[in-house]
């Protein structure tokens, strides 16, 4: 948890010290595009100055089973938590401990004293897979596309670009300057987004560009083939600026059914697959496989209905939270593959622990005027203490969490009606009934939390921004401070305050963070795990260092 503080200090030092005097990087002379190097080509002699020790050439291939076929491989349209498919690089990336480190940037970006200008210098000599050199123009193009309302990207909303990005300019061919409308403490995290080549996309409608399904980036893997409904093939980039790549060929297949994924692993047709705990257990002691558990910030939260008269009193909501046995949910529902959650995951500002205390919960309910009725349920003015909790019908984990909440709350005399529904019905009934949501990410709190708790989102009738319609000036203040404050210590103080305020409000009943499990064949080595967010599809926590994976002979 202190790591974030340390890295930010280091970052600040960078900024203060001014990052070692810059030698003007030579402008790469534009060269005629080379065709993407086929694998058979003799390896390029690396420039003499590369500090990386010589590693063996890429070899072998693996088959990775995804649950769903991706829709779009263009980073502009991608889910921020999904990783970048290794065809692209951002200006920065995360290391194993989720600290930002330079990627396409030569060093960490500089933030001006007023926090309104961010300057990035690019690593020299980086090329796209088609041989075109990467320049500042590509960065400008990518970011202008992200900010363009005609481009149907959800990242514009996640990054709050309409209120953040004044302009982005190329100072010279290797220097990019971002002008911000307001200080943005999370801005460096946003620079993780993959950079796309201007020369292949300029003048096209990005929403329908063929590029979205034939991506060309700078990353460790070159896109080769996408057969719809069947597979995506990628091959190691022999000229990767990050050094040699481990595995020569990646094949992604799409297997929706978890039992089918397990069967294919056993049959040897698939080398990597995510499995639910129940199925993963059968691989645990099998020497042919390795089982990876990926800690996450992906919380399962019962967001209580804001239109339910029985739950208007915050004491009642807090009592519910005290009566939920989170460890029992981790052990019973998730078979141990999870952690108790008491608030949103914020590195360095963890939420206070809420001890499991059904007796205390009962006392709190009585304090709020509820008394046990003849049927054993709490009542007040002849009304029974009851509410409805929905969950997406297809999600068995959320169903089991909802049922666990029901049985825990029954013990303190609260009657919960559990209903599994489709998302359409959930959207329509939300507010009258609660729902078990899945949200959370470990990168920068501001990338998500602002829109979930800030009162400006309580008034726009979008269903899932500020879903509990919380209007609390103190929460707003903490969020605004966390958003604008570059001083990490002050920022963490604000977020610690926020954690406390969210618990006091009590609409958000946090239960667990999931721990997804991925099983691989044991020939794959050098896999490192990073904490991940609420990922759809290709999860970042497992695959963040995919280019370093190796196959043991």
């Amino acid at each position, binding site marked *: 948890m202190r790591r974030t503080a340390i890295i930010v200090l280091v970052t600040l030092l960078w900024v203060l010290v001014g990052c070692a005097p810059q030698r003007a990087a030579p402008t790469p002379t534009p060269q005629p595009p080379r065709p993407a190097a086929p694998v058979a080509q003799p390896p390029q002699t690396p420039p003499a100055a590369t500090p990386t020790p010589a590693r063996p050439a890429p070899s072998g291939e693996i088959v990775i089973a995804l649950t769903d076929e991706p829709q779009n491989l263009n980073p502009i*349209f991608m889910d921020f938590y999904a990783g970048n498919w290794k065809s692209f690089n951002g200006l920065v990336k995360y290391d194993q401990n989720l600290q930002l480190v330079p990627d396409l940037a030569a060093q960490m970006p500089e933030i001006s004293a007023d926090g309104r200008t961010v300057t990035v210098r690019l690593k020299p000599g980086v090329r796209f897979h088609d041989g075109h050199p990467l320049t500042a123009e590509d960065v400008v193009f990518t970011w202008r596309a992200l900010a363009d*309302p005609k481009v*149907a990207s959800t990242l514009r909303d996640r990054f709050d670009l309409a209120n953040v990005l004044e302009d982005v300019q190329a100072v010279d061919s290797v220097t990019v300057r971002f002008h911000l409308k307001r200080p943005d403490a999370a801005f460096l995290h946003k620079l993780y987004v993959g950079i796309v080549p201007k020369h292949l996309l300029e003048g096209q409608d990005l929403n329908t560009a063929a590029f979205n399904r034939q991506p060309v980036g700078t990353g460790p893997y070159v896109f080769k083939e996408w057969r719809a409904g069947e597979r995506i093939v990628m091959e190691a980039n022999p000229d990767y600026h990050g050094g040699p790549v481990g595995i020569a060929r990646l094949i992604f297949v799409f297997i929706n059914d978890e039992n089918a994924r397990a069967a*294919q692993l056993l049959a040897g047709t698939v080398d990597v697959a995510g499995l639910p705990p129940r199925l993963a257990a059968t691989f645990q002691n099998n020497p042919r496989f390795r089982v990876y558990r990926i800690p996450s910030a992906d919380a399962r939260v019962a967001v209580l209905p804001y239109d339910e008269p029985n739950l208007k009193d915050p004491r009642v909501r807090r009592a519910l939270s005290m009566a939920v046995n989170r460890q029992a949910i981790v052990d019973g529902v998730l078979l141990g593959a999870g952690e108790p959650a008491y608030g949103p995951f914020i590195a360095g500002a963890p939420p206070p622990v809420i001890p499991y205390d059904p007796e205390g919960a009962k006392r709190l309910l009585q304090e709020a005027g509820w008394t046990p009725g003849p049927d054993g349920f709490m009542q007040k003015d002849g009304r029974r203490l009851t509410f409805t909790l929905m969950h997406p019908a297809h999600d068995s984990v959320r169903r089991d969490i909802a049922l666990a909440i029901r049985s825990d709350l029954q013990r303190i005399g609260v009657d919960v009606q559990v209903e599994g529904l489709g998302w359409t019905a959930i959207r329509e009934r939300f507010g009258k009934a609660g729902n078990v949501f899945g949200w959370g990410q470990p990168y920068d709190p501001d990338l998500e939390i602002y829109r979930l708790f800030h009162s400006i989102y309580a008034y726009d009738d*979008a269903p899932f921004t500020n879903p509990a319609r919380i209007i609390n000036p103190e929460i707003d203040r903490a969020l605004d401070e966390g958003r604008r404050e570059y001083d990490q210590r002050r920022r963490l103080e604000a977020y610690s305050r926020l954690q406390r305020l969210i618990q006091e409000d009590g609409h958000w009943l946090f239960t667990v963070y999931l721990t997804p499990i991925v099983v691989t064949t044991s020939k794959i080595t050098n896999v490192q795990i990073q904490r991940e967010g609420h990922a759809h599809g290709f999860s970042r926590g497992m695959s963040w260092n995919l280019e370093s994976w190796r196959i043991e002979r």
Partner: protein
Amino acid sequence: MIALILRRLLVLPLVLAGVAVTTFLIAAVSPFDPIAAYVGNETPISRQTREEIARAWGLDKPLAAQMLGWLGRVVQGDLGYSRLQGGKPVAQIIRERIGPSALLVGSALGLVLVGGLVVGTLAAAYRDSWFDWLVRAVCHFSIASPSFWIALLFLLVFSVQLGWLPGAGIADPRAAEGGRIDLRRLVLPMLSLAFTQQAWFTMFVRNTVLDLLREDYIRFAQAHGKSWLAIVFRHALPNALIPFVTLIGVHLSEILGGTVLVESIFAWPGLGTLTRDAALGVDIPLLMAITLGASFLVVMGNLLADVAYRVLDPRVREGRL
């Protein structure tokens, strides 16, 4: 005959237009939200961005304008772009998926036709024998069981338990670029589809042949001392073929519907899986194109059935019926 074909072809655009309008309206009044499907069901997204995305995809226009615009483009041969698949042109998506589906439907249909004819005729020839009882029992079982259940059963038994056949995809994922279709992977989806579709054909042939066996010319042939099987196959079966051919045309929609579940279970990259994904993702442009294509096939199937009827049946051909 020519007049009939022309008349039908003239009506075809009207039928398709009707189907298009109906599909559009159903999609419009359905509670499913295409924007929510596009951004992700749970993604907290501000009202403003939602509206921008709706505008980018042309979903902000009034319904009539959306529909007319779409129809206008379809007439020019532009089926639009899929929101679900990164803006890929719908025509291209469908072109890529036709091959696998044609292979699956074609082979299953071939199996159903040949099997249905032979088995149905034999069941009729040996009416009330153990064989006939078995055929009827299997047919009733297959009509009563949903196709996805049959498909899962086949998958479990032959692929997972016995390990005889691969149960997913169309080719080995590790195959080199442009990998060939692996015909072993066709077997299970083909059998599942054929098994769920065969009952109608088999029972139909059996009943038609039974009716024909009551005709005088059969008795006449029997009196000549010809063997029973020869009589059935030479005299009764050809006459049973006529209604059988029409059944194919009429039954085409059933078979197309059956592919959705069977393909989904075997991860077969055809139009069935595509239909499922398009429906789940509320990908209206894609759904519209699939519905139109399927309607076109059904109309053509019916037309072919009528034409075949006239070609095969001399009584219809000479206008005596």
